[in-house]
């Protein structure tokens, strides 16, 4: 974001673009107003009354993740690394989403918990619960600030609006629709945002490919800018450029275990901002189908993310020069500007408005997901559990609305602090840091779900030691002790968190008493009846193609075939 001042990335938005952006935001707020009429209890507000159909929660599930940080970051990866970017999707997200739908969702939805920390409470008791609830709530509210700051810098960059105006306006709109309509408004807007983002990315891909002379034209132009290393850019495996691990074998292991297993399973299966979308579904079958339905668009959307990235690094003269220099040239652009450069080069007024609406929508969806998961955890897991028990439901609905307002104010404050520091590195670091909470969480959950002997103390201390392990490995890498140039550092620290968490959990369990089996019904695999999974609750859940195993198997086959195509 160094080019803030010189305005070289400014897009010439015209009146027609502003009209399209305005239309979009009128509908965003309209959804908030309309959804308000369906909020009459706290469960309506936090989980949309568990009433949403699977296609809605499925699209919201991936949309909550398809925030702007994801889009900018992955288009940038496409520009820098090329085809290996797909690993974040076909090795990273897809198997984890299938695992969530097939294996873990029966526990979450079946136990009727209202949040991921609540599952923690019932399986491991208050200590582990508090560790999880507080770290999650804190992370979400600060990441909401990161998203808001990122939104403001992009509006500033593209449209020239002052930072403070963009921060306040963005926060007010998100606040308006999430306090009014609660989870339903957040989810509906995520679905609408998904389509707007697709309407931005698909034209960029096709027009871009037309400009460079198709896929073969793109490959030959990449050859011209990167010379001999072209194979690493145009083949998915072994992705040594992406991981920074020079041995191909270790690179593949790092990808499959670090990214594919620990990092992605941790993120997709235990991050409440994601799981909350599935908990809003109207039946067990719809809840299990949520991540599985989401997996299909997730599989294909990477095609319109990494290809535009590769195109941007070819047709933008500044970015091509930057890439040719190996990322050392200081000409005002970096890979992070790839999507803005591409939009500026390819889109005329009209489509430009749609694209800007899509980008702004992406930021807001990210922030709304943070805020709506924060207010749920704050109200149910902290306020109701430890501060004010046994109040009437209206009390908790009011607390939830107030928590949303408070979260937005803290996010504004965080964004202003980031803006006054004037660089985004600190924010990047914060985000990486909070990423560390997920990997050990996954280890603790998976042990806890399949090993009934695991004790309450093991749950909490495994979590804490795993997080510490991740932070230590990451610091070693940042200070140059491990020295991994690519993104392998985060894969290794996630793997370390997982291993340490498992070891510590096993050791502590050996010396502490297990929880009584009666308390673990529905929470541990061997103590849970599987009848609920077979029962078909309504006609909307019937049909062989709605079977979770069929849906999950299908998307895994597609991901495998795509991997072979881009080998």
């Amino acid at each position, binding site marked *: 974001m160094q080019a803030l001042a010189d305005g070289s990335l400014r*897009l*010439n*938005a*015209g009146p*027609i*673009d502003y*009209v*399209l952006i305005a*239309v*979009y935001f009128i*509908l965003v707020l*309209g*959804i908030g107003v*309309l*959804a308000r*009429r*369906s909020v*009459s*209890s706290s*469960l*309506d507000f936090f989980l949309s*009354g568990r*009433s*949403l*159909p*699977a*296609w*809605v929660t499925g699209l919201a599930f991936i949309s909550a993740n398809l925030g702007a940080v994801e889009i900018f970051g992955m288009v940038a990866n496409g520009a820098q690394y090329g085809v290996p970017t797909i690993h974040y999707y076909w090795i990273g997200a897809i198997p984890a989403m299938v695992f969530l739908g097939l294996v873990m969702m029966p526990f979450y939805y079946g136990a009727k918990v209202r949040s991921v920390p609540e599952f923690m409470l019932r399986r491991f008791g208050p200590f582990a619960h508090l560790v999880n609830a507080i770290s999650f709530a804190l992370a979400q509210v600060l990441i909401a600030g990161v998203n808001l700051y990122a939104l403001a810098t992009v509006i500033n960059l593209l449209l020239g609006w002052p930072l403070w105006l963009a921060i306040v306006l963005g926060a007010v709109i998100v606040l308006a629709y999430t306090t009014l309509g609660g989870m339903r408004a957040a989810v*509906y807007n995520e*679905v*609408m945002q998904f*389509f*707007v983002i697709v*309407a931005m990315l698909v*034209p960029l891909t096709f*027009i871009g490919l*037309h*400009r460079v002379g198709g896929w073969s034209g793109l490959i030959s132009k990449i050859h011209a800018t990167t010379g001999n290393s072209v194979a690493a850019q145009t083949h998915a495996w072994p992705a040594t450029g992406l991981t920074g691990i020079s041995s191909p074998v270790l690179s593949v292991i790092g990808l499959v275990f670090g990214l594919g297993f620990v990092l992605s399973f941790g993120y997709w299966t235990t991050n409440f901002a994601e799981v909350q979308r599935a908990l809003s579904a*109207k039946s067990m079958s719809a809840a299990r189908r949520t991540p599985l339905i989401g997996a299909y668009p997730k599989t294909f959307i990477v095609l319109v993310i990494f290809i535009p990235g590769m195109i941007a690094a070819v047709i933008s003269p500044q970015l091509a020069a930057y890439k040719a220099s190996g990322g050392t040239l200081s000409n005002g652009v970096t890979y992070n500007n790839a999507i803005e450069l591409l939009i*500026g*080069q*390819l*889109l*005329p*007024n*009209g*489509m*430009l*408005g*749609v694209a800007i609406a899509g980008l702004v929508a992406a930021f807001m969806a990210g922030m709304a997901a943070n805020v709506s998961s924060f207010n749920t955890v704050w109200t149910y897991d902290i306020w109701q559990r430890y501060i004010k028990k046994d109040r009437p439901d209206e009390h908790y609905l009011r607390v939830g609305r107030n928590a949303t307002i408070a979260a937005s104010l803290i996010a504004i404050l965080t964004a202003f602090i980031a803006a006054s520091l004037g660089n985004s590195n600190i924010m990047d670091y914060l985000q990486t840091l909070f990423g560390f909470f997920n990997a050990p969480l996954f280890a603790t959950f998976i042990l806890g779900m399949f090993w009934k002997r695991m004790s309450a103390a093991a749950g909490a201390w495994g979590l804490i030691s795993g997080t510490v392990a991740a932070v230590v490995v990451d610091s070693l890498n940042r200070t140059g002790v491990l020295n991994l140039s690519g993104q392998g550092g985060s894969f290794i620290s996630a793997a370390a968190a997982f291993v340490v968490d498992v070891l510590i959990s096993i050791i502590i369990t050996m010396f502490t008493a297990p929880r009584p089996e009666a308390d673990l019904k529905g929470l541990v695999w061997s103590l849970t009846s599987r009848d609920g999974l077979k029962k078909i609750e*309504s006609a*909307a859940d019937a049909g062989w193609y709605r079977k979770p195993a069929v849906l999950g198997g299908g998307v895994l086959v597609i991901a495998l075939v795509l991997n072979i195509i881009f080998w």
Partner: protein
Amino acid sequence: MNKLFDLRIVIALLFLVFGVVVTVSGLVATSSVSASGDPVGVNVNLWTGIPMLIFAVLMALWAFIRPVAPEDVAPTAPEESTTEAK
């Protein structure tokens, strides 16, 4: 009022407006130059506006053919709540 708040209708409405505005601007002025003045070579607005219109029609058709099922209305507040079909 329930059917008015079918999410599919909202999405159809958004893309109807997007599609009309973008297609018309593609028709009145050929948009083969980007907003920043770079040549693109195709009439971008026309080629993206028409698919958006088609998408809007398909979404509206889906909502029309499979309207909100009565059993899908959320049980918490029957006279107020809204949900879509399927």
